[in-house]
């Protein structure tokens, strides 16, 4: 998500699932829709059946999605940047980019500081601080003249982004790409030619990705490479195009929107820092850019504080900004928390719908770290491996002092509320059945928990009681056990403080305290659809006048019900659609005609006059201060351009530079930090993890569902027929898989699902494991995450689950 936000302005899937039917070529990389997003596959197959769309699947495994591929690129796990930069190089070398789009809508023409440089895998500004690698990003910034960015629309200046990019990717010729990735050169070139065909104005190329792209020590850079490829081909903001990030759970988009990330508060505002933002003034002055839509940030933050603290929040007391928790700058992500836990620095934990004992990297160490907790609360449907960590195989329950509480939760069909899908659709779901026994909705649990904490503060005091005691918490509904969902939703949506009426849009938010809003990006989702007579998120109108699958009155798509973001880019600067067959908006000479909610100003807010197309053409990416898509991103901390590095555990040396790994990769020094050396003889095979359609995440629910348990009951590892022959292993044999972190025993599946890849002249085997098993539920088995490393991406700290080293042998 960091890669997307730094390129386009928002960390979101740009289009939506139904829109896939409008694509001409689909590049699926690091995603396996047929297995993990089967409903998305339906629209891909429609594109293939109805308009002859082509599908390229880039995946080391023969996946179910690859079954439908016109071209299947089996690239080595962790070499996506080499592949994508190679494609970009092919496009630039052969002049296949969409010139008018690139000149007008990207920062290709911007001039960069002449001090910018790149040498042997490292960008200019490298240094060390406290023994750690750092980048000073000063030399990555744009050249300015009187506060204006200098540009060269001819794209010839050696310091312009276009030329810098061209030079940077020139090293990724097809031969080098093949040596790194293992994809035969001719297949790679075939894929390049096919995908580059979408650089024409009336063609749409769609890149679909998922965890295969993000779960690397350069995951954000992987995403950046995809986003840049799409900008060069003019595939952003159009029907059938986009960078479509398919999320790992049905409501992950919703959870990140609500700030289930340690560096954010709701609506993608950065979390206030204890050092940089002690006061509201500090925060607003440092965090609010002068241009772009984020210039409205003060309205969003003040309205959020009003939603949190109600009448207590006034202009005089900075809307109680002091009560907002501040970040201490330490690593508070998943791996960071478990690192602190292992060191005894975390006393208690809520595992709320999460099962780190199976899903966390180096899972055996995470289980051990939990022994250091005084208390653990698990909120889930079944007793998960996390809830049972104290009596896991090999543990001594008597020696573990942790007090464990289990709160049984209602399943999604046993409660009401909204979920937000990958395509940003916020859809209300009605309750189908009552939850069994004492199971409660998460909202009920959160409500009672808050009230209990508040009572404790009231009775016994505490260090900092005000934020708890004064929190606005008025969701009770007389005569009902469940909190009033309508009140919660209205608060998230935003309301007029005086009337408590929901607001139609976040455009109405104020920074004077007259509006309250829990999460500005959801503005309008709970505003009534006058015809359907329900809040927007509850409506289900099957109406698609434009015939593009936009369905504007089906639920609500944030922001402001816009289905395809950055849609100004679907027209040329004069407002003429690039593709007359797929019109999202067009300028008819006097005004804008729109099919989707425009992602640009079409009417002057004060006068109501139409805004001419030239104005919006200058800044089609409204969330970025410079207003144009970033081929070169000065804001990305680990490099303005993506560069190939090896996974932290790799069988080979980086052939492009001396810099073997991302110099800023997140590493730890505890017992979870064990790593195999490069080219390790002890762990010679590349391993990757994946999911199966039969199970969901850690299997906490699906392995407890008999009908799902029986269709995928056994943990297994896929190995190639060639490796199997060498190790004398047959399908069904028990094998021992071992990494520097641990070992597991599971069944062997010998099929050409994986096969050895030719990496720089040397044949290297790849093995693959699903990670859905644990020691609880109806069917049990070891978790592949007992083997995965605890290293991560510098921007997001997402662990490198997708590429590491193992050894395999027949179990005795």
């Amino acid at each position, binding site marked *: 998500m960091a890669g997307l936000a730094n390129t386009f302005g928002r960390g979101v899937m740009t289009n939506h699932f139904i829109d896939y039917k409008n694509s001409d070529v689909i590049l699926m990389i690091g995603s396996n829709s047929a297995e993990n997003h089967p409903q998305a596959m339906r629209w891909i197959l429609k594109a293939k059946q109805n308009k002859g769309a082509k599908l390229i699947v880039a995946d080391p495994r023969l996946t179910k999605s690859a079954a439908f591929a016109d071209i299947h690129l089996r690239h080595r796990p962790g070499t996506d940047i080499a592949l994508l930069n190679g494609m970009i190089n092919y496009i630039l070398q052969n002049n296949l980019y969409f010139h008018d789009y690139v000149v007008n809508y990207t920062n290709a023409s911007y001039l960069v500081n002449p001090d910018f440089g790149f040498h042997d895998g490292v960008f200019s500004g490298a240094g060390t601080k406290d023994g750690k690698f750092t980048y000073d990003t000063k030399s990555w910034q744009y050249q300015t003249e009187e506060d204006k960015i200098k540009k060269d629309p001819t794209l010839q200046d050696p310091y312009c982004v276009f030329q810098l990019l061209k030079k940077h990717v020139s090293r990724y010729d097809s031969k080098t790409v093949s040596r790194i990735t293992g994809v035969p050169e001719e297949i790679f070139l075939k894929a390049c030619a096919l995908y580059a065909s979408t650089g024409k104005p009336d063609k749409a190329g769609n890149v679909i990705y998922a965890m295969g792209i993000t779960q690397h020590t350069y995951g954000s850079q992987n995403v950046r490479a995809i986003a840049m490829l799409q900008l060069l081909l003019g595939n952003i903001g159009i029907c059938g195009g986009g960078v479509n990030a398919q999320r790992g759970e049905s409501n992950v988009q919703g959870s990140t929107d609500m700030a289930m990330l340690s560096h954010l508060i709701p609506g993608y505002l950065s979390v206030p820092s204890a050092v940089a933002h002690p006061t509201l003034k500090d925060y607003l002055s440092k965090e609010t850019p002068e241009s772009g839509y984020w210039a409205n940030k003060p309205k969003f933050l003040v309205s959020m504080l009003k939603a949190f603290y109600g009448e207590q929040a006034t202009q005089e007391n900075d809307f109680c900004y002091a009560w907002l928790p501040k970040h201490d700058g330490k690593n508070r992500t998943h791996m960071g928390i478990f690192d602190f836990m292992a060191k005894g620095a975390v006393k208690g934990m809520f595992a709320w719908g999460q099962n780190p004992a199976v899903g966390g990297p180096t899972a055996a160490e995470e289980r051990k770290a939990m022994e250091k907790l005084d208390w653990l609360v698990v909120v889930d449907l079944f007793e998960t491996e996390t809830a049972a960590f104290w009596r896991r195989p090999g543990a001594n329950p008597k020696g573990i002092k942790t007090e464990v509480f289990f709160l049984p939760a209602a399943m999604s069909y046993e409660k009401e509320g909204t979920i937000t899908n990958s395509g940003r659709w916020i859809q209300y779901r009605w309750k189908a059945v009552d939850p069994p026994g004492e199971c409660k909705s998460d909202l009920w649990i959160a409500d009672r928990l808050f009230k209990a904490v508040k009572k404790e503060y009231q009775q016994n005091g505490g260090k900092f009681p005000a934020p708890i005691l004064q929190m606005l918490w008025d969701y009770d509904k007389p005569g009902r056990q469940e909190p009033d969902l309508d009140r919660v939703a209205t608060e998230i949506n935003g309301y007029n403080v005086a009337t408590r009426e929901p607001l139609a849009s976040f455009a109405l938010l104020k920074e004077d305290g007259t509006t309250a809003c829990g999460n500005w990006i959801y503005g309008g989702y709970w505003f009534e659809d006058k015809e359907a007579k329900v809040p927007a998120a509850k409506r289900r109108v099957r109406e698609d006048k434009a015939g593009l699958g936009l369905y504007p009155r089906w639920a609500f798509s944030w922001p402001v019900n816009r289905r395809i973001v950055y849609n100004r880019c679907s027209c040329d600067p004069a407002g003429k659609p690039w593709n007359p067959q797929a019109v999202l908006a067009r300028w008819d000479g006097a005004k804008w005609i729109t099919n989707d909610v425009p992602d640009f100003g079409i009417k002057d807010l004060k006068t109501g006059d139409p805004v001419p197309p030239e104005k919006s053409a200058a800044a089609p990416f409204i969330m970025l201060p410079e207003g144009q898509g970033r081929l070169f991103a000065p804001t990305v901390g680990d490099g303005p351009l993506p560069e190939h590095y090896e996974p932290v555990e790799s069988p080979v040396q980086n052939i492009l530079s001396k810099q073997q790994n991302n110099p800023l990769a997140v590493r730890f020094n505890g017992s979870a930090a064990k790593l195999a050396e490069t080219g390790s003889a002890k762990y010679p095979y590349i391993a990757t993890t994946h999911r199966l*359609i039969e199970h969901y995440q850690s299997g906490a629910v699906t392995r407890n569902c008999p*009908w799902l348990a*029986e269709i995928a009951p*056994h943990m297994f590892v896929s190995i190639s027929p060639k490796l199997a022959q060498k190790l004398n292993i047959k399908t*069904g044999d028990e094998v021992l898989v071992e990494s520097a972190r641990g070992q597991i025993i599971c069944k062997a*599946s010998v099929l050409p699902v994986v096969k050895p890849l030719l990496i720089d002249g040397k044949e290297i085997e790849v093995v693959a494991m699903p990670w859905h098993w644990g020691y609880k539920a109806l069917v049990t088995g070891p978790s592949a995450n007992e083997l995965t490393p605890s290293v991560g991406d510098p921007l997001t700290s997402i662990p490198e689950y997708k590429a590491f080293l193992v050894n395999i042998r027949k179990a005795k």
Partner: protein
Amino acid sequence: MSKGVLVDVTRCMGCKSCQVACKSWNDLPANVPDVPEFSDGLNSPAETNGYTYTTVAIRTVAREDDYVLRFCKRQCMHCLEPACVSACFARALQRDPQTGAVVYNQNMCVGCRYCMLACPFNIPKFQWDKTFPIIGKCQFCFDPNGKLNRIGQGLAPACVRTCPTSALQFGEREALLKEARERIKKNPAYIKHIYGEKEIGGTAWLYISDTPLEIFGFRQDLGTRPLPEYTASYLKFTPYVAVGWTILLTALYLYTKRREAVEEEKKSAQG
């Protein structure tokens, strides 16, 4: 006019939704905790059984210099002239002339398992672990007097209803044949054959594919003559064969169980 389902192998992605929907609609128990044996990580269970009326077969297929995966749902074909019906002297198996569903009635069944021998698709399966076992097989969601009825009310079978990619299509058999011919005509990737159109006199379930169906276990040697025509003259022996067969198979089952028990004891003694 009878009903049918067109299975288009080129549209199936192996999601197994049909497999689970079948169990859900028909209230069939799962093989848990006595789970199916590991087959290869893709297929589970490897074949239909007394409690599993349908499975998705998943195979790797060599293509040019690499492989592809292909998926195919298997279940009762609902023959127009079913061998199992003519083999069943107890009349536990009947073909409904309206819908074309070949339906098994457990109350009539004497447990002879002759249907199992008669079926060229290896479909009827026995509940070997039960004291009073019955046959398990796809009923085409036809249950005119019970709660499991779907096609009798004009609804698509549970498996078809749940298929996300329209790999399964329910309708009048004649209309489906027309649709199948059109698809084959339009796209040269298809093998020019509709499996089930003529095989053993025709089946309600029809298959089109870009990959030879043998890999999923479909026999190619069946011919177009309905099987009951071959068997009619031998049917008078059925009751004798049935009794003898029951004794033999039950004995074999008990023998296998015993061996497993001994094996278990050995293991625990070692452990």
